[in-house]
């Protein structure tokens, strides 16, 4: 095992730990912070079953964005394509983490490749939108560009790895499986892979401390996650 491999192994474990613990910490904080009043945006469902039915289209289709005007249609398109591609790419990457590779992961391979190519284009829409629309330019922060560029960076280095600067997939797989099984293997000898890998670690570390927590927040935001049931249920809180 080479020394450099060790450094990357350690970085990977550190990043994964920050991601998992940070995410869990946020989930727990959100869970423990009370909602002292019943504040669903109405009209809303009256039961928790109804809440699930309200949230599904929000998560799968960003339904509320579709209520908006032209700017939101562009946003919807770029954002939705981006998220779907992101998901497909993550699924596709599972083949590096598993041995033997489960059938469902294999079934995502082809579409995952397409997703990888479309992905930077969708992100391009999202980023161009930010400086071409006055209102977005006003509200956008460094962090908003940062995360888009970071993810574009991950996507482009991935494309480079796949089409132009190929590295040994056997080595990559050995390295990742080594991480997963806690039996560290050497880092593949590829600068491009190293960059790709490091960018992913940055994303992992950044995630729990950033707006990316919307991935969980969408499930717990009380305006949508509460049932409209104030007549039936008293929403009691310890502090109140």
């Amino acid at each position, binding site marked *: 095992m080479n020394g450099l491999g060790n450094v990357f192994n350690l970085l990977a474990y550190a990043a994964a730990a920050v991601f998992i613990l940070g995410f869990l910490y946020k989930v727990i904080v959100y869970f423990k912070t009370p909602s002292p009043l019943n504040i669903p945006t109405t009209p809303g469902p009256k039961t928790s079953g109804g809440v699930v039915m309200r949230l599904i289209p929000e998560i799968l289709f960003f339904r509320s964005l579709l209520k908006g005007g032209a700017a939101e249609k562009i946003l919807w398109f770029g954002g939705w394509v981006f998220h779907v591609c992101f998901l497909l790419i993550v699924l596709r990457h599972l083949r590096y983490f598993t041995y033997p590779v489960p059938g469902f992961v294999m079934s995502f391979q082809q579409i995952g490749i397409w997703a990888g190519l479309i992905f930077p284009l969708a992100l391009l829409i999202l980023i161009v939108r930010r400086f071409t629309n006055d209102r977005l330019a006003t509200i956008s922060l460094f962090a908003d560009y940062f995360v888009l560029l970071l993810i574009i960076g991950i996507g482009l280095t991935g494309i480079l790895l796949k089409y132009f600067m190929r590295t040994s997939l056997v080595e990559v797989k050995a390295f990742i499986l080594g991480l997963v099984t806690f039996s560290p293997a050497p880092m593949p000898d590829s600068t491009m892979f190293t960059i790709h890998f490091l960018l992913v670690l940055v994303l992992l570390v950044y995630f729990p401390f950033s707006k990316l927590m919307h991935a969980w927040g969408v499930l717990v935001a009380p305006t949508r996650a509460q049932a*409209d049931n104030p007549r039936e249920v008293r929403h009691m809180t310890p502090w109140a």
Partner: protein
Amino acid sequence: MADFKTPELTGAVTTPKITPGASRHIKQFIAKPELMEKVGFPPQKASDWKEQFIRKMGEVLKKYKSVKVFLDICVRCGACTDKCHYYLGTGDPRNMPVYRQELMRTVYRKYFTTGGKLFGGLAAAREISDELLDEWWVYFYQCSECRRCSVYCPYGIDTAEITMAAREIMDSIGMGSKYNLEIVHKAETIGNNLGMNPDALKSTWEFVEEEIEEKTGVRAKLPVDVEGADVLLATPSADFFAEPHIYSLEGYAKVFHQAGISWTLSTHASEGGNFGMFIGNYNHMKTINKRIWDAARDLKVKRVIAGECGHAWRAMYAFSNTLNGPFDFLQHKSPQHICEFTLDLIKKGALKLDKSANDEFTVTYHDSCNVARASSMGNTPGDQFTIPRELINAVCNKFVEMDPNTTGERTFCCGGGGGVLTDEVVEIRVKGAMPRMQEYKKIKDSHGANFFALICAICKAQFTKVFPYYGIEMEEVGGVHQLISNALVMGAKEGV
């Protein structure tokens, strides 16, 4: 009329050019120290106000999931930016909901997030300062807590929650709104927002009885503090004296009279509204709300009915059971809305109606945001839209709808809700009303609408104030129960 330009009525709502600071000068008056102390807040800013501010913010973050989650998760996607009537009316970017929130988020980052603590300005984190506080003061009182932004947000982020939290934080360091706190104080000590004592109330109610008698020949009573009545009516006190509010009060009285229902008003709970909600203060909201339930208990009524008022209905429908429940001592354990109640009576055939009495009117209906997006009626989600419309259609022949992008859950606020209904900020009220005024203008031009029907006391006060700025007669503003009152045939009792 004033030193600002009323937006032009073109019949179209267009997204304005961004004009930083366009409404920066519009400020509510700060409450005097005596008033602050009377409502239990520090009299004024102390030398250590910044520490108090941050401490209070930390407390709010622990107490309200909405605030905590919303501050964390907004992706600044921009979907809300052109949905706020105050932005549409002023072009001031701080009135874009997300950018209003940013005033709080920037402080949140500085003191409560890892990124903000480590990277400061790069992470858009700002220390609290006099200047920033002044921006809070301006723009968190240019939000009517109408929740329109929440409807379009992919996560349902509700700027109203942030606004309420901001006002609560400012109150806690000694910086309160004169207008809002005077009302809170009067509601808690005298029992209504206007500060009318029982004698004044009684003589007004008597006056309304006389009015009804004069118009109809029938003396429909406005019973006062009647023990054992079936119904306690809690309605905004504006209904007792303001126009057109008072015509809806006549309507309620006539409906009860004709249906033969025993009811009462209460001098103790002579207010349906609840400004404790506007300032985001749980305890004040609870104290104000409690008077209604104390009165209901004392008078041994069977049910409580709420009059026409948006935020009052939110407080009663959505919050009162939590705040002061459970209402086991009542036969009807939940407060009912007067519209639900009257429609039931109409469906049962208990009221005789003559639609032609409203033939001079082509009516359109403005969904009040607190009814539309913050509460419900009936049994099915969305009944808060159909019930008032069914009522109007039962008493009028000509009803027309405004653009569906601006009704129902998408309705525009009147521009005066959420504690903004005060004269020193009339400019923001007039400009904030612009989107709704454009739609009304459109329906006037296309369908000849000439009656703007409402079920909210604040909406009524706001529109009567701003219609003239736009060159429309304020007499076109009215209540749904005013229309019912017009159509209700008195005397000829059909029985329940």
